[in-house]
Structures are given as structure tokens and as C-alpha cells.
């Protein structure tokens, strides 16, 4: 207890004398913790939502039978007829767009009669006003409808016919619909009215879906005679592997048996790299915060040297001094974390939205799950908050413990100076830079670019170590120029920054790290954007592009009716069409897209892909040649992310389960692709139709005949498509849409950058305040020597400006090297994209100007404090 009192008096009480600076330090930590927590919570919420997407009504089944492009309905009967007590639940799974709200929801077709007894518990809840004793929401909904149908006498028949009525649907409560309401749904390219027969509880939208009877669903999605999945509930006896083997033995080779929920697992796995990268990005703010804590505790140690000397002389051990300073920093950490927890929870709401955009654009249709502040998340927040603070405070705290009592007391208060071992630190910086170069060449470990991250960390350390020498050199070279340009303020500012080199260096390093993050991500995103734009120029040679209406998503491939395609192809202004059919498949436990494209255009001499452009293939072969070899054979081309994820290359063979068979395909080449991170396999449409004979394409490209006006053809197509809900884009529109989605995708990284910069600027403000307090003698003296209050203010602002300038320069250099690691190591190993380097000059200039302005703004309050100092009191004290 006496120790606690002592700790309060000597360590904590002084903090209250500088409330603004203390508050800024705590706020810096709180923001760092909040960002990490927000990304963690949002990541969990986003990942959680996968389960609810198609697994909404999957119940307590434990196996699933599935296949690319679905499986024949006949297999349902075959499996049900097996001499085992299996519960068999076939499913149609697709998506429907609610006309009014434009909301895209999973569409689930299930055997509403056969599965009446096996609905999940949530579906069994009796709803107020439902008919009879029936506890099943589906049956009850129809029974209720039947009881209102006065003309009918056979209520049971009516109930059944209502269940299988193609217009009957059941919806989740969060949709806000009532039984009996009519809802227009867009399924593929057709919009139809449906009647809501019942509403089921859907956990506040987390398990919202449109449910219909399986036969009605087959008709609605155009997959008569096929189902997408068969869910199996195996008997209790025997383990799951045995059941899996047993079923595999009786099913066609192309049909897959796997544990139910494997798709969810695949999605989680696919998202792992994205979440991992975001998580690490979120730690940048903490690294910036760590620099600032280091600075805060260093200032604290320097200011208290005489006190340390006194308490050491009075019998305090080194351990006690070390503990006291670590305790001070831990207090910052604990308070910062306590504030960071609610802040992080709040930020998670926005983060989920931003993450959702990226996930949807690049990975999978998802609805964010609920954000839950679990004990594990709280523990994580405390671990990173207090942990980072203690680590960063250890060095100055240890220095404090080594203060010799007599020396400290004799020398009294000293300036915050410097034992900067420039040469040694520059050499260490070189060592770290070389280590970074070496780490950047190491391969990924378990699909994670761990050495890439290490290279980035080494670069940050190298930069931090080189900064003192950099600051000293720049200030030495620039002080006379600054004197001439800015007068006394320029001279004093440059000398002051150089004199307190360690403090200056830490601040520059903190801000430079934040700037480097901004620059490196700016370069990466800018390069990516330019690469995508250039790629689109090569990929979009058609005049018009058509797809079913509805929100586009990377894992949804609604189809266009074949008769519609034929009608469009016959229009007078249409020279040719190209069709692409896409399927979602799983390859080696990861989701991927399988596509079949028309290669017919090559036969007519007009290429789908421009032949005069840069080759889209790794081999460098002309596209025409690759497509010629692809035609009609079991050859495929695969996208770069696919090849990268599965470690495949040209000439490798892959086996795909298609329809009811398994077939081997030869990889003819690998193509650059930036549409999705999921990975694609592309084959000739004719080859695909041999395995999956559904002729409906997912989208199509239209080539306008020579002499025909594109807009006229567009109008003709729109007229021909009356009754179908198709979206027709010009190549320009499709490019614009792609770039819009691209920009939204990276919104979250910009948000993370902003927080890192904010933490750094807060740190600069706090450090400038400390600087004002520590240099008040100098500031007071300035007034005696004829300085105006404006000149005193200017001195602080010039120092802030110089800090911002130094940090910007160091940040740009560090950011450049980090961008190389991001683009060519971390991105390549995580996502497999080849990105061409590009300097987004305007974006960078804007960002750097903003940081520079923010740094100067951060000096306003300290400058005000400096002006308010009373020179008489200061000189009198001295």
C-alpha cells in the first residue's frame, strides 16, 4: 500500500499536471487498440455471416453431396433407397433479388413436405395466429391460407397444393413482410410475383432467405431435374468418414461427398489471407503508437532525472525505478485500452460495412453477422494495448533504472538530449535493410507471406534507425538556409530539432511510419488500379455486355434464358455474340469459378480478346494461338490467382468433378485476371457443355455489325428483352462500374491509413506540448531578446512543419520500399496478382499535403501554450 501511494505521488500525479499531453497519449493508445479491435470484431462478423448465407436452413445434417453445376435429381432417390437409415434433404440454392428493396437474398428450394419433421428448431416455433396445432411455419402458413379459402373443402389438399405452388414463398422476419403479401422477385433474368405464405424467425436477418418448395425452385432457376446439394443426416452409429466412404462408393465419380458446411470452411479459408492482411495493417497504428509511448516515457525519464537520483539515494533499487516507469506506461496502456474497447466496438460497425464491400467484390456474397465483443476480443485488446506499451517503454525505463544517483542530483535537470550513436545506428539500419531484402525473397509459409511481413517490419526498423542520422544531416545542411528563409524562427527550430535528436527522431519515425503506410498502400492501390484499367482495355473488345439484373457478386452467376440469347444473336445490328457460362466449384477445398466461353469468334477472325494487345498469358503466346488450342479439347486456361493458390503452372494437369464424371484437364496457359481473388478455370464453351449441358450463359458480349449504331443495337436488344430483366452495358460503362467497385473495395485500407496518421499527429501534438514545457526557458528568453509573441508561435509551428516535412520525406522513401514488398511479395503470395508498378502522383501529393497540414495544425495548441508562457516567471525560476 505505501508503495502504491508512492507510485501515485511520484509517477501518476505529475501526469495530471499536464492533462492535455496525458490525454493525447492515452488517446493515441486508445485509437491504436480500437483499430485492432475493430478489425478483429469486423473480421469475425464477416466470417460468421458465411455460415448463415447458404447454411441457413441446413439443419442438423452432417454430410452433403454436391457437384459442379449441380447433381441429377435421380441421385436423391438413389441415396434415399440405400439400405441405411439416412435422412436425405435435397436443396436448390441460388439467389433472388427483391424487386422493391433491391436486396439480394439466398433462394433456397427444399422439400417442404418431406422435410416437415426435420426443420431446424428456429423454424418450428409456433407463430401467433397460426392455424391449429401445427408447429411448422411452412405448413402452418399454407394451412392458414387454406382456412381462408372458403370455396375449398379439402383443407389438407389445399395445404399441400399451397406448399408446392410455384408462387409460394416463405421469408425471414427481417424482410418485414407479412403472410399473404405479394413480393416481386428477380431470379436469373426473370422477374415474377410470389406470395408470402409464412414468415420465419431469422436471427435479425443473419439467416434471412427466400424459401420455396424444391420443385418450384427448380422451375424458377431453370434447373429442372437437378439439385444443387443433397444434405444427409447419417445414423448415430459409425463415424462420419466411414459414411462418407460408403456414399462415395455408390455415387458417380464426379459427385462429391463431404462434411456438411465444408463450403463455409472453404469460404473461411479463402478469406483468411484478406483478414490476415487487414489485421496486420491495423497493427500499423499500434506501431506508430509505440513510437509515441517510447517518446512519452523518454521525456518522463529525462524530466525526472533529479527525482530518480533522489529516490535512488534514499534507497530505491534499480528494479523499483524500472518498475515505476513500466507501471507508468502500463497505466497509459490500461486506460488507453479501456477507452479503446468501446471505441473499437463503435468503429467495428463501420468496419464491417467497409469489409463487406471488399468481401462481396472479391470473394463471396455475404451479409455481415452480428458484432460480438467476446472475452477473447477484450483479452486481445488488453494484450496488444498494454503489451505494446510495455515493450515500447522498456528501453527508456531501463535507462532510468541505470541513472547514477550522485550524477543525476548534481547535474540537475538537463535538456532532453541525446546519446545518438549515428554510425552504429546507420550500420544497424543497413543490416536490417539487407535482412529485409533477404526476407522479401523467401517463399510464403502455409499460404501466408510471413517473410513478406517480416521484410516490412525490418524496413520500418531500418528506417527508424537511420532517421537520427538523416535528421541530423538535413538539419545541419539546412539550418543556414532556414535562417535566411525564415529568420530567427527557422534557425532556432532547425537547431532545436537537431539538439534534441532522439526526441525528434522518434517523432519523425512515428509520423514517417504512418506516412509510409499511406504511401505504400497508395502506390499499391494506384498500381493495382492502373493495372486493372490497362487489363480492361485488353479484355473488353465487345461493344455491349449483357447480364441478368441484380447486384453483381463474384460468387453468383445468374443466367440468361437461352431463347433470349438466340433472339439477341438474330438481331440485324448484331454481328456476333460471345457467351460465358460460369459455375461455382470447389477445387482442392477452395472456392473457384469454372467458366466456359465461346471461342467461335476466332473462327470468324474477330477475336474475343484483342490480338494486338499485350499477351494476357504468362507464356507470352498470342491470345489467338492459345484460344485455338483451347477449342474443343480438354484443355483449360487458369487465372493467375488460381495458379498461385494451387501452385499450378502451364502444362500441369488438373482433375475436375463435373456433372457426374471426373475428368482430367491440361493447363494450356495461365492468364492475368483481376476480376476476383477466387481464381478461375476457363475452357471452351463446347467442352463445358459436354459435362454440364445447361446452355444458359451467365453473361454475354455483343459485337455490333459494321455500319450499325451501338446505341440503336442497344435499344433493339432492350426491346427484344422485354419481359426479361437484363442489364446492358457499353464497354465504357462496364469499365466505370468496375473501377467504382474497385475504389470501394479499398475504402477500408484508406480508413486504416487515416487512423495511423491521426495517431501520429496526436503524438506530434503531445510531443510538441512536451517540447514547449521543456524549452520554456528558451521561449521566455526569446521575449527578452525582442521576439514577438507571433515569432514564438511561429517557432513552434516551424518545428511542427519541419517534423512534418522530415517525416514526409522519410515516409515517402520508406513507403516506396514498403510498396515494393506489398506489391511484389505480400500481394503476390497472398492473392497471386501481378501488379505493374505505378506512381499515383496526384493521390500521393494530396495525401502528403494533408499530413503536412495536419502536422502544422497539431502545433497550433502547443504554439498557443508557448505564447501564453510568462517569461518573467520562467527566467525567475531559472
Amino acid at each position: 500500500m505505501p508503495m502504491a501511494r508512492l507510485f501515485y505521488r511520484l509517477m501518476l500525479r505529475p501526469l495530471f499536471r499536464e492533462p492535455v499531453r496525458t490525454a493525447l497519449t492515452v488517446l493515441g493508445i486508445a485509437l491504436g487498440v480500437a483499430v485492432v479491435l475493430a478489425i478483429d470484431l469486423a473480421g469475425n462478423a464477416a466470417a460468421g455471416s458465411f455460415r448463415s448465407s447458404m447454411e441457413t436452413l441446413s439443419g442438423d445434417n452432417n454430410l452433403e453431396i454436391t457437384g459442379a453445376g449441380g447433381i441429377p435429381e435421380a441421385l436423391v432417390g438413389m441415396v434415399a433407397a440405400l439400405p441405411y437409415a439416412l435422412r436425405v434433404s435435397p436443396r436448390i440454392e441460388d439467389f433472388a433479388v427483391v424487386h422493391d428493396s433491391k436486396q439480394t437474398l439466398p433462394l433456397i428450394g427444399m422439400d417442404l413436405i418431406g422435410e416437415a419433421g426435420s426443420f431446424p428448431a428456429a423454424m418450428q416455433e409456433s407463430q401467433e395466429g397460426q392455424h391449429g396445432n401445427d408447429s411448422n411455419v411452412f405448413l402452418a402458413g399454407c394451412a392458414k391460407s387454406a382456412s381462408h379459402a372458403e370455396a375449398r373443402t379439402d383443407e389438407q389438399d389445399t395445404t399441400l397444393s399451397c406448399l408446392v405452388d410455384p408462387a409460394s414463398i416463405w421469408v425471414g422476419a427481417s424482410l418485414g413482410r407479412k403472410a399473404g403479401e405479394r413480393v416481386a422477385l428477380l431470379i436469373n433474368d426473370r422477374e415474377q410475383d410470389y406470395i408470402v405464405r409464412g414468415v420465419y424467425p431469422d436471427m435479425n436477418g443473419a439467416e434471412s432467405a427466400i424459401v420455396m418448395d424444391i420443385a418450384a425452385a427448380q422451375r424458377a432457376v431453370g434447373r429442372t431435374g437437378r439439385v444443387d446439394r443433397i444434405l444427409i443426416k447419417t445414423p448415430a452409429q459409425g463415424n462420419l468418414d466411414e459414411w462418407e466412404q460408403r456414399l462415395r462408393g455408390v455415387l458417380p465419380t464426379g459427385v462429391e461427398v463431404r462434411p456438411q458446411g465444408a463450403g463455409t470452411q472453404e469460404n473461411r479459408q479463402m478469406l483468411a489471407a484478406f483478414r490476415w492482411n487487414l489485421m496486420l495493417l491495423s497493427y500499423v497504428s499500434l506501431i506508430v503508437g509505440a513510437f509515441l509511448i517510447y517518446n512519452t516515457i523518454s521525456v518522463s525519464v529525462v524530466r525526472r532525472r533529479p527525482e530518480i537520483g533522489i529516490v535512488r539515494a534514499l534507497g530505491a533499487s534499480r528494479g523499483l525505478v524500472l518498475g515505476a516507469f513500466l507501471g507508468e506506461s502500463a497505466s497509459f496502456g490500461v486506460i488507453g485500452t479501456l477507452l479503446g474497447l468501446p471505441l473499437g466496438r463503435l468503429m467495428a460497425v463501420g468496419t464491417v460495412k467497409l469489409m463487406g464491400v471488399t468481401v462481396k467484390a472479391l470473394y463471396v456474397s455475404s451479409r455481415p453477422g452480428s458484432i460480438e465483443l467476446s472475452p477473447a476480443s477484450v483479452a486481445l485488446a488488453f494484450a496488444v494495448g498494454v503489451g505494446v506499451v510495455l515493450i515500447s517503454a522498456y528501453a527508456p525505463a531501463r535507462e532510468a533504472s541505470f541513472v547514477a544517483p550522485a550524477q543525476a542530483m548534481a547535474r540537475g535537470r538537463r535538456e532532453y538530449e541525446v546519446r545518438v550513436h549515428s554510425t552504429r545506428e546507420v550500420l544497424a539500419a543497413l543490416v536490417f535493410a539487407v535482412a529485409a531484402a533477404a526476407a522479401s525473397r523467401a517463399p510464403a509459409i502455409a499460404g501466408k507471406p510471413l517473410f513478406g511481413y517480416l521484410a516490412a517490419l525490418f524496413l520500418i526498423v531500418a528506417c527508424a534507425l537511420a532517421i537520427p542520422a538523416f535528421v541530423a544531416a538535413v538539419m545541419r545542411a539546412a539550418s543556414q538556409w532556414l535562417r535566411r528563409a525564415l529568420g530567427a524562427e527557422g534557425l532556432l527550430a532547425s537547431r532545436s530539432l537537431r539538439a534534441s535528436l532522439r526526441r525528434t527522431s522518434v517523432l519523425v519515425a512515428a509520423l514517417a511510419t504512418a506516412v509510409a503506410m499511406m504511401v505504400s498502400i497508395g502506390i499499391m492501390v494506384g498500381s493495382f488500379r492502373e493495372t486493372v484499367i490497362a487489363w480492361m482495355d485488353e479484355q473488353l473488345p465487345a461493344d455491349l455486355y449483357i447480364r441478368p439484373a441484380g447486384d453483381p457478386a463474384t460468387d453468383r452467376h445468374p443466367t440468361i434464358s437461352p431463347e433470349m440469347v438466340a433472339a439477341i444473336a438474330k438481331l440485324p445490328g448484331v454481328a456476333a455474340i460471345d457467351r460465358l457460362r460460369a459455375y461455382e466449384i470447389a477445387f482442392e477445398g477452395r472456392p473457384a469459378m469454372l467458366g466456359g466461353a465461346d471461342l467461335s469468334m476466332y473462327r470468324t477472325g474477330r477475336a474475343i480478346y484483342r490480338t494486338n494487345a499485350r499477351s494476357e498469358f504468362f507464356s507470352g503466346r498470342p491470345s489467338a494461338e492459345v484460344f485455338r488450342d483451347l477449342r474443343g479439347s480438354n484443355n483449360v486456361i487458369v487465372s493467375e490467382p488460381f495458379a498461385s493458390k494451387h501452385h499450378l503452372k502451364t502444362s500441369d494437369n488438373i482433375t475436375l468433378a463435373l456433372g457426374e464424371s471426373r475428368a482430367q484437364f491440361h493447363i494450356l496457359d495461365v492468364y492475368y485476371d483481376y476480376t476476383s481473388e477466387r481464381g478461375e478455370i476457363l475452357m471452351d464453351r463446347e467442352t463445358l457443355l459436354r459435362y454440364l449441358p445447361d446452355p444458359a450463359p451467365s453473361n454475354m458480349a455483343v459485337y455490333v455489325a459494321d455500319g450499325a449504331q451501338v446505341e440503336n443495337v442497344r435499344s433493339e436488344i432492350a426491346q427484344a428483352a422485354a419481359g426479361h430483366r437484363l442489364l446492358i452495358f457499353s464497354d465504357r460503362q462496364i469499365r466505370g462500374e468496375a473501377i467504382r467497385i474497385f475504389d470501394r473495395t479499398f475504402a477500408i485500407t484508406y480508413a486504416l491509413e487515416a487512423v495511423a496518421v491521426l495517431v501520429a499527429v496526436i503524438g506530434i501534438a503531445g510531443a510538441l506540448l512536451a517540447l514547449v514545457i521543456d524549452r520554456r526557458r528558451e521561449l521566455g528568453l526569446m521575449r527578452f531578446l525582442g521576439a514577438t509573441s507571433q515569432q514564438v508561435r511561429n517557432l513552434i509551428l516551424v518545428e511542427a512543419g519541419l517534423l512534418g516535412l522530415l517525416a514526409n520525406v522519410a515516409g515517402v522513401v520508406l513507403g516506396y520500399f514498403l510498396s515494393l514488398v506489398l506489391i511484389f511479395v505480400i500481394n503476390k503470395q497472398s492473392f497471386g496478382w501481378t501488379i505493374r508498378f505505378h506512381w499515383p502522383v496526384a493521390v500521393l501529393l494530396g495525401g502528403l499535403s494533408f499530413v503536412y497540414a495536419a502536422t502544422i495544425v497539431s502545433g497550433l495548441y502547443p504554439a498557443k501554450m508557448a505564447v501564453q508562457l510568462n517569461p518573467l516567471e520562467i527566467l525567475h525560476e531559472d
Partner: protein
Amino acid sequence: MHMPMLSLCDVTKDYESDGQRVRALAGVTLDVEAGQFVTLVGRSGCGKSTLLNLAGAMDFPTTGEVRIDGTSTSGLADAALTRIRRDKVGFVFQSFQLLHTLSVIENVELPLLFAGQPNARDAARERLQWVELDGLGERLPHQLSGGQMQRVAIARALVHAPKILLADEPTGNLDTVTGNVILALLRRLTREHHTSLLMATHNVEATELADVVVRMRDGKIEAMGRP
């Protein structure tokens, strides 16, 4: 009409300290003529430093009037007070108050830089010659002895050719020999350049060199006359 370089007329100065009003100066009247050397003597806390602060336009009197070269400081805005200090007043302190981050010559030229005057470097070099430190301009203060540091402070105080030099215990941190050298230097320079010198001191030798000695006690002038 004759006008003293510095004139304090019935000046009082009160401070608030822990909610209590403390009178630092009580009805002080004093004139310092151009080129005159006046020493202020008395115990610590008798009001010497307060009087210097008022004389240097660093503070306002509570009542009464302070005139520097004919200009009353009462009611002046901060900028005007700063102008008076820049043009007419130089300060020398007991603890030298050099900026350790600046070289000797940069310390000396600082007031001219604040005033935005051209040729600051030349003027600073000349003042260093005055105090016999030419050749040490590029050194940093910590590379000098105490006496040398005070010479630099004097050069800085004179760099803008002030009308009045205010010195607060300028020999207080120096040994007797060095202190006497500094006193002699101050006396010589102020005489050569017709600069008034108002010095708060405990140094007996200083009082012997002064034209007028002002003895203070409890914020009042107890006695005033030739040494």
C-alpha cells in the same frame, strides 16, 4: 525639455501569490540619464528584479508610470512593448541565458534576427570584437568559460545598439576576478556608446564603479546617491 532615458514615476507593482496580494514595488521614483550607470542594491526580494522587468518593458506597473526614452509603457500592446525592447533595451542575466543549440555568433545576432534587420552577422561579429571574443564565434556556449559566456551575453545585449542595458546580477555566477573584468567591460562599453546601464547587484565593486547607487528595501527606495 530634458528627458531621462528611463523614468519611473511613483511606480507600484503588486502580484497575486496564493490568493494574496504581494506588493513588490511601492512608490518607486527613479530617473536614469543617458549614459549613466546606476546600480540597484539590496537584499534578495527587495524588488530589484521587478524594477528591472518594468524598466525593460517586460511588465506593466500596477500604478505609476514607466517611461523608456520618453515612451510610457502603460497601456501599450504586446507588439509595441516588443518594439521598445527590440530598439531600446538590452538584457544581461546572472546565468548568461545563452542558447546552447546556437553558436556564439548566432546567439549574438539573435535579437537582430528577431527584428528582421539585415547584416545581422556583421553587427554580431563587431560586437564580439567589442567583448574581445572575435575568433570564437563558431564555438558553442558549452565550449566557453563562464566569463566568456557572460561576454557573449553582453555582446548580444548590445548588438542592436540599445539605449539602456539592464543587468541582473551579471557577476553573480562568476569568480571575483572574472566578475571585475566583466564589470569593467560593461562600464567601458556603456560609456563608449553612451548607453545607460541599470544593474541589480550585490557586488561591492560594481557600486564603486556606478554613477548612482540606489539602495532598496521592501519594494521601496531606501537611499539613493553617489557611491
